[in-house]
């Protein structure tokens, strides 16, 4: 590479290192990062602070600065719907992450067996990630609606007693959210795992095979441990999808029946925007952010530590 005649080469010798150009070079990285740092300081942390301040006020339709201490948090704690929403997030998030990981791993391993048309299958598994629920919401509502969708179709085939009415069952509605969310993200997880599998050195597998280990055993004992970093990134991506889930609920159940399938994100939106309770909405947003932090900090900690050691 012909990098030896740069225009900004510091003038001859180490003595002249502190020229203006040199100073500029030393500061350039920081200058480049400065706008982004300022942006995240203002638009992320500033907005969070603003939200926190609002959560201490009695703001209703638009922000006001009439402080009421932690009263909004107390109201939130006494709100039945908030607890339903939080519990739902735990159920939904837990199942969503677990199923995506399991399904993604299984599909990736199966797809790694020198399959014909692998490319086509991979694309089919992956494409839902490209679509938002604004787009697929209508069709999902259809499919899950007992009178129009899968139930009606299967009954039409002659299975008169077939039931699939989770969408209209208050106890089961939250699981329809899991189905649709798994549909959207599991293919993506599969692709992550597949790339991980492809990255594993064949010699490790060969050695294990020579030891006479059975295939499932090899996968469980040798391959899966190698995929740890992928599992980790996948969990992060999935949990942030789970916490942010909003379009999904609005499109599928709109929180119903009743508010049986509400999630914190929809709770926050409903209170801050349609119910003129910005104070309460902000308090719920702060608790959501707390949840995000609880997941993010361990991730960052291990991520940055690994980098340092690796």
């Amino acid at each position, binding site marked *: *590479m012909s*990098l030896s005649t*740069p225009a*900004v*080469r510091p003038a001859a010798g180490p003595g002249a290192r502190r020229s203006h150009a040199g100073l500029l*070079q030393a500061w*350039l*990285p*920081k200058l*480049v*990062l400065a706008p*982004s740092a300022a*942006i*995240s300081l203002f*638009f*992320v*942390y*500033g*907005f*969070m602070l603003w*939200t926190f301040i609002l959560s201490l006020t009695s703001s209703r339709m638009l922000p006001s600065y009439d402080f009421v201490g932690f009263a909004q948090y107390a109201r939130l704690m006494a709100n039945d719907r908030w607890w339903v929403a939080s519990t739902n997030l735990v159920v939904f998030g837990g199942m969503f992450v677990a199923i995506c990981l399991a399904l993604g791993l299984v*599909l990736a391993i199966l*797809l790694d067996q020198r*399959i014909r048309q692998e*490319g086509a*299958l991979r*694309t*089919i*598994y*992956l*494409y839902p990630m*490209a*679509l*938002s629920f*604004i*787009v*697929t919401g*209508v*069709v999902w509502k*259809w*499919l899950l609606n007992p*009178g129009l969708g899968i139930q009606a*179709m299967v009954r*039409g085939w002659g299975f008169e007693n077939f039931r699939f009415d989770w969408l209209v069952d208050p106890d089961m509605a939250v699981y329809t959210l899991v189905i649709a969310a798994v*549909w959207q993200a599991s293919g993506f997880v599969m*692709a*992550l795992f597949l*790339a991980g599998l492809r*990255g594993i050195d064949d010699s490790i597998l060969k050695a294990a095979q020579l030891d006479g280990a059975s295939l499932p055993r090899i996968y469980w004992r040798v391959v899966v441990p190698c995929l740890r970093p*992928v599992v980790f990134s996948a969990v992060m991506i999935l949990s*942030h999808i789970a916490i942010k889930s*909003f379009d999904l609920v609005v499109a599928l159940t709109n929180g119903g029946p009743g508010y049986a399938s509400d999630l914190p*994100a929809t709770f*926050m939106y409903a209170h*801050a925007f349609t119910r003129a309770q910005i104070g309460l909405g902000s308090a719920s947003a702060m608790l959501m*952010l707390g949840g*995000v932090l609880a*997941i*993010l900090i361990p991730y960052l900690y291990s991520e*940055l530590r690994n980098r340092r050691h690796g």
Partner: protein
Amino acid sequence: MDNVIRRRTFGARLGRALLYAVLLLAALFYLLPLAVMLVTSLKPLAEITPGTLLSLPQEPTLGPWTKAWGEACTGMRCEGVGVYFFNSIAIVVPAVLISTIIGALNGYALTKWRFKGSELLFALMLFGCFIPFQVVLLPMAQTLGWLGLSSSRAGLILVHVVFGIAFTTLFFRNFYVAVPTELVSAAKLDGAGFFRIFWRILLPVSAPIIVVSVIWQFTQIWNDFLFGVAFSAHDTQPVTVALNNLVNTSTGAREYNVDMAAAMIAALPTLIVYVLAGKYFVRGLTAGSVKG
């Protein structure tokens, strides 16, 4: 050798058959919604009855598509989603380019020009990935007002760039961290400057991660509804907002076929990108994090 293979034939065949059966079943699960959308969008309205989700159209028609593109009404405007499709493009293209460029420079500066606190800065910026967007709607509205950008296309682009750079920085940083530093150090000794090193050493190897960043941002911004509806004016609304208006416009017999066609139109760009470049997307995404 031949014998070995033949002896295992039956079990292996059964295994293979099972394998393919499972994979195809999974493919059906993933394809079902898209198939229903596509089939429905090609049916005349009369053919859409309960329980016939998947039956093929008897008299296939492109009518719903042309109607969804150019004629379907929301409010007083009967111009379909076509106009809004181009609004989306006008927002997405600059937003994707700007956020990718900024992300690349950030990732480069964070990994190859480390300074005290650069890791902390990265960690702090990363938080932007996780902030739920509903939370920022109102403060963002106020800020856009201060900047004089409310309800403008530039404002919407700004919003997408601001909340996109956390992701693009993450991608580029994780990618560049795996690029050997020796070359960069050598170039620095040679006196090459910040941008020159980026241009000559980092950029030429960045293709995979640029693909990732572009696809990710493209999908996110194209699919965005919340910012699109809150920060656009009547003439700058993106296609997702138009789709929502169309689908939620309620009177008379709902034209499910037109709704589905409009949904397909709104979905096509991201769908095409995934089909064409999905391979590179995943490859690039894992390039940094998985080492053999």
